[in-house]
């Protein structure tokens, strides 16, 4: 499957999780794409941790507004109702539990909902930016990621061996093949796509998970 199509599939599915009117922070990569795949009639409000609530879409190249970027350092625009604030207020909003959802990428997710996504092994990643704040602070954490790493290594594991971003933080995990939800008993497979079997999924998913009695098979 074309990698871009995989990413779109994940972003489109994640967009369905968001209630109308919710306030959301989108991480870089697949999460950023979620805004482009909202179902018709659904409005969400985007927060950017560099100090903006009500982030609008990217401008055309000739309409870039000076001093207006998102946390991924990309030019953005205002909407009706945008407001700006300093970094302490921004992270107060995040840490204080005022965001409905953060959608973020993942390098590893464990069966207990631990997330590793800041330190890429072998790469020079110096600092976690706002990832730890978002994952602990937001009311709901959705990890949107490809099911396995580029080299085929599993990402959905029994226990993370990469540096942890936060423990027991993930609420929903969305990949191109599956939707898992985390509850007090652990990890629950709620949805699988029609192009993979349960056995095939199991083979690429070392984490222990239950299968929902109401398992949905989503046609793709």
């Amino acid at each position: 499957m074309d990698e871009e199509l995989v990413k779109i599939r994940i972003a489109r599915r994640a967009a369905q999780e968001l209630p109308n009117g919710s306030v959301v922070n989108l991480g870089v990569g697949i999460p950023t794409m979620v805004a482009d795949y909202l179902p018709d009639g659904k409005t969400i409000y985007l927060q950017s941790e560099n100090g903006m609530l009500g982030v609008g879409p990217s401008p055309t190249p000739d309409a870039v507004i000076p001093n207006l970027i998102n946390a991924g350092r990309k030019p953005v625009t205002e909407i009706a109702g945008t407001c700006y604030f300093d970094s302490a207020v921004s992270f107060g909003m995040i840490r204080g539990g005022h965001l409905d959802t953060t959608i973020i990428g993942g390098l590893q997710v464990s069966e207990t909902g631990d997330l590793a996504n800041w330190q890429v092994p072998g790469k020079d990643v110096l600092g976690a930016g706002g990832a730890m704040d978002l994952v602990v602070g937001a009311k709901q954490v959705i990890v949107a990621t490809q099911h396995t790493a580029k080299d085929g290594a599993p990402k959905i594991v029994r226990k993370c061996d990469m540096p942890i971003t936060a423990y027991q933080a993930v609420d929903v995990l969305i990949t191109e093949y599956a939707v898992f939800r985390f509850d007090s008993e652990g990890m629950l497979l709620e949805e699988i796509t029609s192009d993979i079997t349960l056995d095939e999924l199991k083979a690429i998913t070392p984490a222990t998970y239950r299968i929902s009695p109401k398992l949905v098979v989503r046609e793709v």
Partner: protein
Amino acid sequence: MIEQLSVDDAAKLIKSESSIMVGGFGNIGNPKQLIDKIADGNATNLTVMANDLGTPNVGLGRWVTENKIKKAIGSYFTYNKDVARKYREGLIELFMMPQGTFAEAIRAGGVGIGGFYTRIGLGTELTEGHETKIIDGIEYVFAKALHADFAILHAKKADELGNLIYDKTARNFNPIMAMAADYCIVEVEEIVPAGSLSPEEIVTPFVFVDALVLVERSCCQHG
């Protein structure tokens, strides 16, 4: 009382071994002219507190190139690959904090709070060895306030007293750093008479500001 300084004179105030907070996020909202002038100057062995260190040889990246920085405290230095190289070679010391803890620690330093408890980063590498505390059944980790000798900041406009307003996401760390340094220098694009700004829209009250540096607006367009 506020001082008005030239870029040159303001940059000369920064001496070697100083600690210095620098506003901005990803080269937006940083005091570009002050940064460049200090890069050209003699001060070295600086302890820098900034979200990031710019990009290679741009913004605070120039201080990396010019070997001005002994230690950097911030949240994300990955934008600038020179930092990684110098870090590996032991030429720069880094203290990395979750971005919100970094912001809150700066604010704490500005408002006379010695330290605070947060849940962010608990159990991770970034809080290794930090004290923890249970408050109402929830575990928190301690973070100490940050304070600096100098802050160099950027604002859109100041009035003659030193009240400040900002522009869009160029606000970021500037208002909190304005509170947290012994001497706060702000690069502005315009200085207007006192009373010209609405009392309700002023973001940084003048009491936090020590010096203004007026720069040409044309050279400070970002983006």
